[in-house]
C-alpha cells in the first residue's frame, strides 16, 4: 500500500490489487466483501472499515458509477488511504469509526471501467446487451426503483441516459440494492460522480421536497464550505431537480425512500478546461477537498442519530 501512487490513474486490476492489499495489510480495520458480480462476471468489491461490533450503523460511499469519470475512482482510493491513516490520529474520524462502519465501493461499474481502459475512454454506461438493439449498456444512475421510467431518463438504448428495461435490471445496481436492504442499518449514503461541482440531495425524479429538506440543505451548505476551504473550489448545492435537472431512477432518490436520511451525491471539480478528463495532477487536490466535505456529512450523521 505504501507504494501505491494515489496521484496517478489506475486500471481495474491495479485498483482491485489495491483493495486486496489493503485488506491484507490492515485486517484489524479493513476487510473486503464481494456484493455481487457485474454483467460480464467481474467481482463487485467493497471495502468495509470497521472497528468491531455487529450490526453497527453504517455509512456508504461509492465512486465511479459512470465509468469514464476516472477522478472519482481515483478519489475513492485516496479516501481508503485517508480512513486508514486517520484512524487513531484524527479524533473526529476515530470517533466516527468507533461508532459506525464505513463501506466504500471504489469501482461501482467494473465492466464500464475496464472498457474505458481497453476500448473506449468515453464509455459511461454498464456493458449489458439490450434485446432488440445493437446499442450496449444502461445508465446505472437511471436504473433505480425511484420514479423509474418517468421523465428525466431515456427509453432509447442508444442514449447515454438509457434507463434499462426495468428497475434494478443491472447487476451492478441490484448488488447495492440487495446489500443495502440486507444490511438494514445504513444511515448515510454518498454517491460520488464527476463533474460540475455540485452537492445534491433528493429528489431528482419529482419536484416534491424531501421531508428533511431543511436539514439536508444545511448539511450540504456546511459541506461545500468545508470543501471550498482548502483550494477555494466553489460548489452549488440543492436538490437534484432544482439544481441541475429532472433525473428519474437515480441512486439517492431510492436510498432516501428506503429511509436513509443522509443521502447525497457529489459532482466533483471541474476547472472549466477538462470536464471529467482531469489531468492526474488534479487527483489529489480533488480528493483532498472532497474528503473535507465527506467528513462534514459523516460527522453530522454521527451527531444526529435517527
Amino acid at each position: 500500500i505504501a507504494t501505491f501512487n494515489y496521484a496517478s490513474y489506475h486500471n481495474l486490476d491495479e485498483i482491485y490489487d489495491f483493495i486486496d492489499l489493503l485488506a491484507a495489510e490492515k485486517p484489524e480495520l479493513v476487510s473486503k466483501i464481494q456484493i455481487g458480480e457485474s454483467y460480464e462476471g467481474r467481482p463487485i468489491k467493497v471495502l468495509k472499515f470497521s472497528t468491531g461490533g455487529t450490526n453497527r450503523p453504517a455509512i456508504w460511499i461509492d465512486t465511479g458509477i459512470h465509468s469514464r469519470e476516472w477522478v472519482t475512482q481515483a478519489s475513492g482510493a485516496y479516501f481508503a488511504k485517508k480512513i486508514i491513516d486517520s484512524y487513531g490520529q484524527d479524533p473526529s474520524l476515530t470517533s466516527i469509526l468507533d461508532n459506525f462502519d464505513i463501506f466504500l465501493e471504489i469501482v461501482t461499474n467494473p465492466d464500464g471501467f475496464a472498457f474505458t481502459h481497453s476500448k473506449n475512454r468515453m464509455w459511461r454506461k454498464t456493458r449489458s446487451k439490450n434485446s432488440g438493439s445493437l446499442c450496449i449498456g444502461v445508465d446505472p444512475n437511471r436504473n433505480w426503483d425511484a420514479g423509474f421510467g418517468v421523465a428525466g431518463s431515456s427509453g432509447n438504448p442508444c442514449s447515454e441516459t438509457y434507463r434499462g428495461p426495468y428497475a434494478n435490471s443491472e447487476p451492478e445496481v441490484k448488488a447495492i440494492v440487495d446489500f443495502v436492504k440486507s444490511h438494514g442499518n445504513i444511515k448515510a449514503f454518498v454517491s460520488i460522480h464527476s463533474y460540475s461541482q455540485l452537492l445534491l440531495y433528493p429528489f431528482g425524479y419529482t419536484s416534491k421536497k424531501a421531508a428533511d429538506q431543511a436539514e439536508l440543505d444545511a448539511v450540504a451548505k456546511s459541506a461545500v464550505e468545508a470543501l471550498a476551504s482548502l483550494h477555494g473550489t466553489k460548489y452549488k448545492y440543492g436538490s437534484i431537480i432544482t439544481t441541475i435537472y429532472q433525473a428519474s431512477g437515480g441512486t439517492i432518490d431510492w436510498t432516501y425512500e428506503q429511509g436513509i436520511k443522509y443521502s447525497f451525491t457529489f459532482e466533483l471539480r471541474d476547472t472549466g478546461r477538462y470536464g471529467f478528463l482531469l489531468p492526474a495532477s488534479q487527483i489529489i487536490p480533488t480528493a483532498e477537498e472532497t474528503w473535507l466535505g465527506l467528513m462534514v456529512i459523516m460527522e453530522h450523521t454521527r451527531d444526529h442519530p435517527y
Partner: protein
Amino acid sequence: TETFVGHQVLRIFAADEFQVEQVKGLEDLEHLQLDFWREPIHPEASIDVRVPFHSLQAVKVFLESNSIRYGIMIEDVQSLVDEEKLSMSHNSRARS
C-alpha cells in the same frame, strides 16, 4: 480501440430558453454522434458536448448561424487521453 483524434469538447452558453431548445434539437440528430457531457437544461447552466471531428463543422455552423455563443473547452480529446496514458505508463515503470 476507439480514438478521439480531432474531437473537441465545446462549452455552449445558451442565451435563453429558445436557444436551449435549439441545442436540445442537436441531440436528436444521431448522425452527428454528439456526446453531451452536460445536458442542455436552462440558460444559466453551460452545456458541454463532445463533438467528433466529422461533425465539428456542422455543429459550429449551426451554433454560429443561430447566434449561440460557445467556446472550445478541449481542443483535442485524444491529446488528453494520450497524456493520461503516458502518465499511467510512467507510474507503472516507476513502480517496477
